């Protein structure tokens, strides 16, 4: 195990895959400059090892970053397209949803589209309305796509490697607030299988399901519940949103009888509703009370801190919601 930041771990994972497979390459704005990607230096130094044909510094052309990745994947390479933020990725929804997600199917299986598209999600202090969005729900709803949203450096690295090796187009969502967070990363290959959840904390009274940064806040909430209420909450980090690990969630709910789904994104129409509905459909008898969910109010992300905090799903708010479930 080695301690490193999320950004460093993911960069390591990318470099390892690029060494392993000469067909793996990355493209995006500012990837090859001395900053190695302006957001968190996720590509720092890679240009020196792999050169400009594999660490491609692109024009500000989101449609083409995504479209070129699709064409290059179809033509036999494994591109990692970085659209920087999910907000900017909205400029390339067509290429992702109409092309990447459908080509294998539309063409009757003649082609695969082995690409990874990186889209940073989540709020970063002061990010405001156009640099803070979490759009995972859109892509979970889109046939043909795989969606991952890791929460730790080890999962960030391990899931990127699995995503690169997958023959499906994978939407890789990293949280801006996690880039500089540190954690233990295995020294071996450390592949994290797509579709497998991780139990952050085992418990018997209540199951809290979450993903990305919110999984860590959910774990904080669980600690509070343990300390203040003597409640034993189980916390599951899905890591992969499609296909999500229903087996693990069902098993946990059958054990605890109570489920709370926590997400950072807007609650209305969010992925949490899918989990709540699916579990209600498949474990109706296991539930002691109806599934609870928590997510952001249906509003854009405001700038000034006091208002910004109204958008946030905090550990305190998770605790309150959990108590509602436990009291029912």
């Amino acid at each position, binding site marked *: 195990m080695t301690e490193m930041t999320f950004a460093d771990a993911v960069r390591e994972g990318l470099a390892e895959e690029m060494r392993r497979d000469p067909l793996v390459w990355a493209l995006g704005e500012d990837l090859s400059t001395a900053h190695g990607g302006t957001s968190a230096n996720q590509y720092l130094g890679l240009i020196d090892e792999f050169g400009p044909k594999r660490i491609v510094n692109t*024009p500000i052309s989101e449609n083409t970053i995504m479209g*070129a990745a699709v*064409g290059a994947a179809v*033509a036999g390479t494994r591109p990692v397209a970085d659209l920087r933020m999910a907000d900017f990725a909205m400029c390339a929804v067509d*290429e992702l949803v109409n092309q990447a997600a459908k080509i294998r*199917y*539309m063409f*009757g299986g003649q082609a695969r589209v082995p690409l990874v598209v990186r889209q940073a999600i989540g709020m970063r202090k002061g990010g405001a309305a156009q640099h803070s969005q979490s759009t995972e729900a859109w892509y979970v709803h889109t046939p043909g796509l795989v969606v991952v949203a890791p929460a730790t450096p080890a999962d960030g690295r391990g899931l990127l490697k699995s995503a690169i090796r997958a023959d499906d187009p994978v939407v890789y969502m990293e949280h801006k607030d996690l880039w500089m967070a540190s954690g233990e990363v295995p020294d071996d290959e450390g592949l994290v299988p797509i579709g497998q959840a991780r139990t952050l904390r085992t418990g018997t009274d209540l199951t809290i399901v979450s993903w990305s940064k919110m999984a860590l806040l959910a774990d904080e909430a669980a600690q509070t519940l343990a300390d203040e209420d003597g409640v034993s909450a189980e916390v599951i980090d899905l890591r992969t949103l499609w*296909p999500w690990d229903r087996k693990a969630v069902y098993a946990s709910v059958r054990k605890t009888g109570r489920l709370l789904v926590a997400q950072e994104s807007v609650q209305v129409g969010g992925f949490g509703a899918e989990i709540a509905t699916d579990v209600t459909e498949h474990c109706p008898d296991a539930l002691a009370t109806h599934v609870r969910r928590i997510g952001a109010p249906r509003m854009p992300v405001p700038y000034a801190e006091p208002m910004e905090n109204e958008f946030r799903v905090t550990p305190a708010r998770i605790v309150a919601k959990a108590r509602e479930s436990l009291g029912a």
Partner: protein
Amino acid sequence: MSDTRQNAPARILGLFETICLIRAFEERAEECFDAGLINGSVHQYIGEEAIGTGVCTNLRHSDYILSNHRGHGHSIAKGADPEAMMKELMGRVGGTSGAKGGSMHIADFSVGMLGANGVLADGLTMGVGAAQAIALKGEDAIVTVFVGDGTTNRGPFYEALNWAMIYELPIMFVCENNQYASSTVTRTITAGDGPTARAKAFGMPAFDVDGNDVVAVDELAADLIGRVRGGGGPHFLHARTYRVKGHISRDKMLYRPDGETEERFKDEPLGRCATWLVANGVDPAEVERARNSAYARIDAAVEAAKAAPFPDAGLAYADVQDFGPPEPWSPAGGAP
């Protein structure tokens, strides 16, 4: 292709055969559409056959093309099997795309035809990516992308031109200017001097040609493709033509002045090529034979397609994705 002198009658006769094959395919496809054998929309390439033919004859099997919604001619010219294409149109077993795509989603990767497309301009951005893959793998293949005149007003068109030039990619852009974008006269929604001027603004060598003259298209395409293959970077070919038929098979063309179609049809490429062949010493009987054999081949394709079965419903669930594929309907009704 062959190494015969560019405009040797023998070579042009070969191109004539391709033009006839495309013409016959489109005419029969329209008949089958009217007969209710084909669903969805069918975009006819009639009157524009010389472009796809003159360009693709200069491409190698290992080269890629990316097409658009009007892709039947491009596919046939690149070597796709018309019978498999007709089966695709009719939604039968044996269709190029397993009957999952239909007319707007024909692809044949075995001949380097990377797909028609139902979304305008997306073939351009995918095309530069395919060219990047070629460069990365160090292959000497090249990419050709076909784009309509109306589509040159979509942003991705420009992004792709700029992108191709920056990375000096092995790619040729072919703009098929049939003067219409659906029911709109393209001129009315297009500012400036048109596609060639726009390409030149990116420093891309760009050339105009009479797209109904297969001999001229063949000659220019051979030249430009040679330059691209030789490391000359992206090139742009702008072919003037005319969309003889409606935008789609249902189209009544109420927007078009009376007589315009008939007037412009006099200039259609099949007839012009036939005239050229006879004028250049080819026996008219041989020309007629070429035309007839093309129709015979397509008629056989239509019969084969009609005779082919529809695919099993269960195949709908195949080829979506490896991770998290769809679950079929449960007897109880709901999809999982």
